[in-house]
């Protein structure tokens, strides 16, 4: 059964092509999409259920029971903020449900620092053909499906 990957934030689906970091726009670590979040304080949620394998203030990875790893990156080059403005809600190693809040942040504050708050959502090490039912560019609510991964 295909894994449905949900949006970690509410905002606008923009795809990876317009992301300024080539690691994402050229799918170096895997295919996926990106969501430009609404500019309001909020929480970034787990895109799938699984183990919170890695957790940094600016990015996290959830790995499903069958080994599918999904990376969510909170903005571009946000490692430079050194955790400033990010609030960890979950703990690395936790099992999390899809939609469970992982990190709190304010995309408007990230943008105010001159950085893009766009969130890439990446199917780690997947082949491009493994993704289907990709959502088209446009508005998305947190938890709504972005793509299916078989």
């Amino acid at each position, binding site marked *: 059964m295909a894994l449905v990957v949900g949006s970690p934030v509410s905002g606008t689906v923009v795809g990876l092509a317009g992301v300024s970091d*080539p*690691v994402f726009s*050229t799918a*170096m*670590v895997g295919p996926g999409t990106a969501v430009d979040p609404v500019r309001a304080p909020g929480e970034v949620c787990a895109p799938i259920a699984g*183990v919170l*394998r*890695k957790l*940094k203030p600016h*990015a*996290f*990875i959830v*790995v499903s029971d069958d*080994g*599918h*790893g999904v*990376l969510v*990156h909170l903005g571009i080059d946000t*490692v430079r903020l050194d955790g400033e403005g990010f609030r960890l809600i979950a703990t690395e190693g936790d099992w999390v449900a899809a939609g469970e809040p992982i990190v709190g942040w304010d995309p408007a504050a990230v943008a105010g620092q001159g950085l893009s708050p766009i969130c890439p959502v990446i199917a*780690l*090490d997947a082949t491009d053909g493994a993704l289907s039912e990709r959502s088209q560019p446009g508005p998305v609510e947190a938890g709504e499906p972005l793509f299916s991964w078989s």
Partner: protein
Amino acid sequence: MDPEPNQTGQSARPAPTKARAIIDGLGGAENILEIEPCITRLRTEVRDSTLVNEAVLKSAGVHGVSRRGAIVQVIVGPEADILAQDIEDQLATEEDQF
């Protein structure tokens, strides 16, 4: 220590030879000022960026290389932290030999 479990459908712990090849690709141990793992990449700072050899890095099996002056990002996927540890271990071993 147990090997890293297979979490992403890829191979488990990378072979130490991969760490070795990345060190070589970055111009050798003496050229590496700093190496820090992020989620999917190694952020490194090198002494002399002209000594960085992308062909060697790519042959080490990395996904890509992104350079901005002396800051070289080696994109390795989610194994970044174990790989960084392997590299640190190798660098420490080499320093002992001097």
